[in-house]
């Protein structure tokens, strides 16, 4: 009897992370919500935190982590290269802009919103907008994927890149989109509703509490990623990633499985987009450019495609470097040596080198996933195979 309820690996390893994650999250939250405003804090620590990791930077990197986790499902799990992920970020962001601001000033719709009922515009509750953003992006993911997923891998990458250019341009020129103003164009939508959490509304400067909310969203994405990875769909993704033909012979429905990867990945993009809109308190069209797509891809590649924890690490490192680390380091360096080097301009170099060197020397990333590692080094294994065979003769 005892044998039949033997420890189930799936359930066990799927829950273990929650404790560790909660502890780290709680520590971060306490640091930023209670320790930083505390007057007894030594000035040195206060300065160090503000220089190296200010509250807004950590929130921003969490938003990047959410989106990198979404991209990881498309690139890491299903092995489909997506170079236009920024499109989903833009759509999610504009969902927040449309449904949580005074943008449609001629309307007056308020559904559990966090502003007074008489305020003009559409005001829907943040948590619902999250879902709306996610699902709208999911639908867009399917719309983009449906006609194109039949293509070979690098053609697919190009089509996603095309959409990643077209959709932001639609928003960029959106001030006059066939006579309608859908996005306010380059001016952007300024001012997004605060996040209601029952007792209070979180505005743009409630970093500590919003950190908690972003941590929660990240946890949801981690949960989704891990659960899906273990399930039927996740195994189908891995099969497609490793050998599409073999997978289809084994009865994996290629189109449906790939579309599912696209939809789930896009859903995360939508979550990230809405979260980012509340983080910067607005939606700005010029932010959504190709560099962001590559930036997210670099995060996934650096951390380790397919490994959730690797992706989180990669996303954290790169968003920190890009957002705060490089400028902070540059300041320190310039002060120390009396130089005047513009370190922020080195991001291109840094990201280029990360992508190249990771691909050349450590294709599987910082925290590799064992299956992917085998797959990515197939060529070397073949060589070893061949040389050992010829040695036998």
């Amino acid at each position: 009897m005892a044998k039949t309820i033997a420890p189930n690996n799936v359930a066990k390893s799927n829950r273990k992370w929650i404790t560790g994650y909660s502890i780290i999250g709680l520590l971060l939250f306490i640091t930023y919500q209670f320790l930083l405003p505390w007057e007894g804090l030594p000035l040195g620590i206060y300065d160090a935190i503000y220089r190296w990791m200010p509250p807004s930077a950590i929130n921003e990197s969490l938003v990047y982590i959410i989106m990198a986790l979404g991209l990881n499902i498309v690139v890491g799990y299903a092995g489909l290269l997506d170079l236009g992920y920024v499109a989903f970020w833009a759509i999610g962001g504009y969902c927040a802009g449309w449904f949580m601001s005074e943008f449609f000033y001629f309307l007056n719709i308020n559904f559990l919103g966090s502003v007074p009922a008489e305020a003009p515009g559409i005001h829907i509750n943040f948590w619902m907008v999250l879902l709306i953003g996610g699902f709208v992006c999911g639908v867009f993911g399917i719309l983009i994927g449906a006609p194109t997923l039949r293509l070979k891998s690098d053609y697919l990458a190009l089509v996603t890149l095309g959409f990643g250019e077209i959709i932001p341009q639609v928003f960029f020129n959106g001030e006059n989109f066939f006579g309608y103003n859908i996005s306010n164009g380059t001016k952007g939508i300024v001012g997004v509703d605060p996040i209601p959490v029952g007792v209070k509304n979180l505005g743009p400067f409630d970093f500590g509490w919003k950190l908690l909310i972003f941590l929660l969203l990240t946890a949801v994405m981690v949960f989704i990623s891990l659960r899906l990875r273990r399930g039927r769909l996740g195994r189908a993704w891995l099969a497609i990633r490793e050998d599409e033909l073999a997978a289809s012979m084994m009865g994996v429905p290629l189109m449906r499985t790939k579309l599912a990867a696209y939809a789930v990945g896009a859903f995360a993009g939508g979550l990230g987009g809405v979260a980012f809109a509340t983080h910067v308190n607005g939606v700005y069209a010029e932010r959504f450019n190709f560099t962001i797509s590559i930036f997210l891809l670099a995060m996934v590649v650096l951390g380790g495609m397919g490994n959730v924890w690797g992706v989180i690490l990669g996303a954290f490192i790169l968003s920190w470097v890009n957002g705060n680390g490089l400028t902070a380091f540059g300041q320190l360096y310039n002060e120390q040596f009396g130089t005047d080097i513009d370190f922020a301009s080195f991001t291109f170099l840094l990201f280029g080198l990360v992508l190249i060197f990771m691909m050349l020397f450590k294709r599987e990333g910082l925290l590799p996933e064992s299956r992917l590692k085998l797959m990515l080094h197939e060529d070397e294994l073949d060589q070893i195979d061949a040389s050992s065979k010829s040695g036998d003769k």
Partner: protein
Amino acid sequence: MAKVSESKKFTGTPGQLRRQRIEQSGAIVISLLMSVWMLVNLVKAPEQFVQVAISGLRNGLIYALIALGYTLVYGIIELINFAHGDLFMLSAVFSSFFITYWIGADQSNPKGWLAFASCLVAVMIFGAVVNVLIERLAYRRLRNAPRLAPLITAVGMSFLLNFIGLKWNGSTPRQWPTVIPSGDIYIGEIRISLITLWLFLIGLPLLLALNYLVTNTKQGKAMRATSQDKDASTLMGINVNKTIAFTFALGGAMAGAAGLLYQQSIGTTSYNLGFQLGLIAFTSAVLGGIGNLWGAVVGGLLIGLIQGLNDGLPYAFGQAWSQSVVFAILIIILVFRPAGLLGKSVTEKV
């Protein structure tokens, strides 16, 4: 009954037939729409039409030169060389510095022509060397790796070149003097700038020379053999590494020439030029049929034409939507006819 069905010529599986029907009907609908659009505009403003068509074709020539680099490389190692557009950008910056600073020519006189001629040679060598270096340092090591690895490396390379361009050219666009005469000639009411003429006078021989090199020389034969089967060509005594390096050199030289022509005709360089133009050029290569030399040329001219018409005609989306139009073409082509206009669709064998 059985005899009849046997004697019926086999044209493809039901799936292939359906695909063919989709392709044909899609092609008919799209070309009908296009011709209606062009006709309406031609009737509305005939002179303007010819004018923008000519300037569109001029850009198209530059796209074609860049597209050749994509198509050569894709033809031989099946890699979308994302860094190619940035190589073009670097070449444009190189030409600007070469002509303006290193030689010091700033107007159209004998010295200017001398600078232009020497720069054409120098920039082609520059493009070839950089491209070969990229291949040697990065892509060669990844030749047998899974497809995703070289593609991501190419994206990284593109960022690296972008960085060099940023440091070399500066973060803002720069205006340069040109050495090609900038007068106009008139044919009836239509104005054609001399720059356009010179561009075609320089660009077309380059295209013909490349075509000759690939189709009529021993090295070209080696390239074609390598693109068909690397192992078999090794057995036939072809040095595959050298052939691939040569292909990269050819593509780089074409990008170099395109950089010079672009810099001389537009007069401005900026560090993020390569990304947009590279993508447009790649679209041209795909439109014509990737791996097909004349396909790249036809695709480039066609994309340039469509873009020019879209930007300049009264009934069109206008310049703000220029990129979207190009990418929409890319997506439509990839969905309906991935093999391109001049390409043959090949069924993948296992």
